[in-house]
């Protein structure tokens, strides 16, 4: 009971809405919704909003943008004009949809940024306190990466 918010059919909420619980929308929301829970938009409900939630189930009308950490489901009665971002997406037959879909998600971008991080500790660990090596690292000497690669291969072979 305490973990679910209900916006009933006769109610309109305008503004910013945040929370750590599930939200059942039967009325209207205009603005933004950010939840660490699930959002359920019922048949006669309408959201003109930027939405962030764990899962979003849409049976009503949504205009704006929907970002779900786990998944978005558009039921047959859904009327959606929005950009959808989620790793999983279901669009049922009968649903009306216009907008962009991105299912690639954020996890793809993160390894690209985290990948250079382990390389640097290896490069700084290899020089035995020699300043010339540190300078070479900054200048991108072709000789250095080769040496680093050779060490990595050597470690892998030992294991």
């Amino acid at each position: 009971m305490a973990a679910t918010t209900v916006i009933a059919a006769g109610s309109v909420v305008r503004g910013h809405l945040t929370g750590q619980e599930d939200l059942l929308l039967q009325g209207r929301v205009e603005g933004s919704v950010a939840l660490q829970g699930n959002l359920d938009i019922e048949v006669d409900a309408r959201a003109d909003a930027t939405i962030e939630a764990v899962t979003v189930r849409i049976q009503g009308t949504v205009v704006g943008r929907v970002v779900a950490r786990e998944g978005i489901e558009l039921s047959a009665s859904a009327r959606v004009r929005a950009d959808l971002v989620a790793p999983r997406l279901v669009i049922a037959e009968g649903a009306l949809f216009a907008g962009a879909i991105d299912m690639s998600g954020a996890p793809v971008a993160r390894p690209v940024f985290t990948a250079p991080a382990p390389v640097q500790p290896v490069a700084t660990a290899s020089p035995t306190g020699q300043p010339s090596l540190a300078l070479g690292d900054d200048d991108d000497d072709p000789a250095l990466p080769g040496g680093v690669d050779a060490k990595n291969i050597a470690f892998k072979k030992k294991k």
Partner: protein
Amino acid sequence: MAITHIGSTLVIEGEISGSDAVVVQGRVKGSIETSQGVVIENSAHVEANLTLDTLEVAGDVKGNVTAASRVEIKPEGKMVGDIKAPRILIADGAHFKGNIDMDVGR
């Protein structure tokens, strides 16, 4: 009867309006306007102007209230603001600071 229920972890910055009863356990900053009753529960913090039929305060309210019929501040309720309502109840133990106007012409 339809009830709009704002759960305990929810924070709304903006306005709630409509024709449903409203129960607040979380936080509302802005305004609440309804033709039905509003209940501000123990865990709730409301910083808003309220226009409604009846109001029950068991939580924390800062703002002005205009009620068509009745305002009740429960023993655990805290309220700072002006109240305009034909009937007002303040229970023993309740905190209140503000002006009261019962001359609403009913």
